[in-house]
């Protein structure tokens, strides 16, 4: 029996195991939306802006370890997806984005809501397609999911003209893809693995830097085995958080610009860096010329283009992190590095950044720590970008995989709420906290309507310091406190929530924090907490831009004296 293009698309998505589509309709998608009613097993979550659909698909993908799907109409619908697609591209998140396109006879005529979305997304997708015949749909969907989810994951876009959605053909779904230009190496080269093993066995001061590749490859057990067998300290990148339990004795926190001082000291003093599934991003390495000056470097990554891109390495191993670690673990000896570990522990005692200051003021770090305490560390934390993101990375301890969802590479403010929607839709069994800044929250807070319409039990904490805090911090430190464009007039966030039917509490005093978080947790549904925090609080430690990881600025002295246990 012949089926329409729209039916074939829906059935292909079902073949790929898709359960949820985050989307927003429009003229070029009318045939598809009409057809969606025939497939109730495809849950459609209606967002309020297409950027939200892309971020939600991204958040979903990160907790489910499979491609998230977003759907938008032609023209502005498609261009609104672009930020979310770029975010997924920079953070290697698997995604299939489907856009409606004007009917084929109108393509290239500057028709109403026509835009060249494949041209626009060329540099921010792993691959993209324009479908020109109904017979291509099944093959293209199969390829799109295969490309999005294998190797180094990423977004793939499919542009589907309106008239193709209505054309008919036989539906045959092939189990195979034939892409001669796409090959992924999974097993590391045995000789390279041996070389790496020798370096590890000979190292006196080894250090593992674990990145998101460990998370993507779900190599938690393999990483733990390597660290424990060789007694090697582990630091993580921002997106590597959760790849190794933060309460593990060998975990020494996050490195980088706002990493722990002792983590950075460990990098700068190590004689061997084992970089696993990370890409030497400038926020992690600071000035690459002075990065890990005493160390030889082993770099394990699935993407050959990451080798020697930012930092030149001694032993590259291209392959899937999990498979490489499985073979590497056989090459390494059981070791102890008591003196070296003792040194890092001493640095940690001397530079206790994870402590929050004591005082009466309401500090954002304290808020994050209490969310950790009240949730027992079990929550999925989804953040936007800026100060609240760094505090969430520093002051919550992530022991479980997939617990920290954040926009790393692109640094997209407004990611938090829609990504939390995706995370909660994907993992309804887990507590999801959306931690937002007052700036970024206002970029996508229209998605509160999505939260309510789809009955998503998301707890929202708006860390309100009345400014675009991270930019303000840079203006304070590097532009003589000339605050330009960073002071915010804000709405009443509790009333905003109330307008959407979401209960909320404004917290202005430290002694109200715990009970407010508890109330949010007890409430059976979405809840918003607005924390009015110290307006001039900054993120420390910090490596100023252009300097090496050795140049860590810690808390200013005045504040330092107030450090408590």
């Amino acid at each position, binding site marked *: 029996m012949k089926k329409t293009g729209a039916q074939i698309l829906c059935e292909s998505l079902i073949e790929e195991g898709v359960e949820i589509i985050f989307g927003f309709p429009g003229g070029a998608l009318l045939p598809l939306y009409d057809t969606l009613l025939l497939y109730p097993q495809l849950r459609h979550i209606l967002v309020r802006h297409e950027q939200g659909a892309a971020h939600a698909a991204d958040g979903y993908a990160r907790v489910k370890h499979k491609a998230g799907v977003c759907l938008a109409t032609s023209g502005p619908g498609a261009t609104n997806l672009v930020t979310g697609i770029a975010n997924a591209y920079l953070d290697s998140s698997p995604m299939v984005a489907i856009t409606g396109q004007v009917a084929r006879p109108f393509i290239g005529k500057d028709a109403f809501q026509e835009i060249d979305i494949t*041209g626009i997304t060329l*540099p921010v997708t792993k*691959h993209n397609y324009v479908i020109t015949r109904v017979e291509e749909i099944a093959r293209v969907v199969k390829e799109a999911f295969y490309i999005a989810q294998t190797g180094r994951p990423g977004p793939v876009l499919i542009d589907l003209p309106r008239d193709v959605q209505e054309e008919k053909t036989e539906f045959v779904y092939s189990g195979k893809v034939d892409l001669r*230009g*796409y090959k992924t190496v999974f097993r590391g080269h045995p000789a390279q693995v041996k070389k790496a093993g020798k370096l590890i066995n000979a190292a006196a001061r080894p250090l593992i830097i674990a990145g998101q590749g460990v998370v993507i490859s779900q190599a938690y057990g393999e990483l733990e085995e390597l660290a424990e067998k060789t007694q090697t300290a582990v630091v993580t990148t921002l997106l590597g958080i959760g790849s190794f339990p933060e309460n593990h004795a060998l975990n020494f926190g996050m490195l980088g610009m706002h990493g722990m001082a002792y983590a950075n000291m460990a990098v700068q003093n190590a004689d061997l860096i084992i970089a696993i599934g990370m890409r030497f991003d400038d926020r992690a390495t600071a000035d690459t010329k002075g990065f890990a000056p005493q160390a030889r470097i082993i770099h394990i990554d699935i993407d050959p*283009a990451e080798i020697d891109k930012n930092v030149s390495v001694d032993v590259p191993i291209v392959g899937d992190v999990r498979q490489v670690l499985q073979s590497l673990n056989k090459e390494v000896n059981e070791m102890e590095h008591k003196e070296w570990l003792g040194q890092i522990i001493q640095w940690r005692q001397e530079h206790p950044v994870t402590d929050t200051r004591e005082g009466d003021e309401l500090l954002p770090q304290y808020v994050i720590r209490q969310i950790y305490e009240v949730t027992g560390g079990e929550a999925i934390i989804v953040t936007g970008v800026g100060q609240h993101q760094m505090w969430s990375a520093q002051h919550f301890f992530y022991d479980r995989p997939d617990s920290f969802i954040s926009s790393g590479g692109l640094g997209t403010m407004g990611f938090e709420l829609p990504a939390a929607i995706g995370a909660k839709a994907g993992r309804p069994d887990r507590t999801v906290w959306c931690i937002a800044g007052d700036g970024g929250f206002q970029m996508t807070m229209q998605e509160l309507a999505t939260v309510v319409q789809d009955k998503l039990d998301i707890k929202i904490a708006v860390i309100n310091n009345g400014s675009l805090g991270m930019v303000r911090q840079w203006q304070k430190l590097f532009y003589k406190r000339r605050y330009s464009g960073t002071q915010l007039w804000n709405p009443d966030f509790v009333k905003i929530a109330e307008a959407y039917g979401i209960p909320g509490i404004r917290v202005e005093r430290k002694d109200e924090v715990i009970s407010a978080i508890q109330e949010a947790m007890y409430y059976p549904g979405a809840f918003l907490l607005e924390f009015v925090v110290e307006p001039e609080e900054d993120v420390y430690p910090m490596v100023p831009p252009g300097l090496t990881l050795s140049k860590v600025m810690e808390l200013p002295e005045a504040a330092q004296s107030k450090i408590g246990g």
Partner: protein
Amino acid sequence: MSEKKHTLVTLVENKPGVLNRVASLFRRRAFNIESIAVGQSEQPALSRMTIVVTGDFAQVEQVRKQLDKLIDVVKVSDITEEEMVARELALVKVKSNISNRSEIIQIADIFRANIVDVASDSLTIEVTGEEDKVDSLIELLRDFGIKELSRTGRIALTRGGRGSAK
């Protein structure tokens, strides 16, 4: 790092948009493509592209790896350091008249170039060879006045039995 000319040979799917995908990677890294030549290869549905760019090894190697990641790129090799046969074709329309026509034809003969069109006030010469040969001929013809010039850019294959881009 020293900059030099690199010759990249790629086999790509013969599909719409592929040239755009390839060129876009060079644009993003601010490479000036000196020449790019595309045509059919020995394999159906695959085209061979020869791209000449100037850059240091690390920069070019980074672009090569990024090219290799494109789904439509089946294979890409930097054959700069390999033994290769490289050729370029140029068409040169030179001003000429009765008095200098035979002189121009003599020069063309030395370069084994062909006269492909003759008019009362011009000659069109077709020359094939490595770039420096084509350059030399063009240099000599400049004295007569070049009305129009079109060069294909380099195409290249590695020497011997082993394919560079298979």
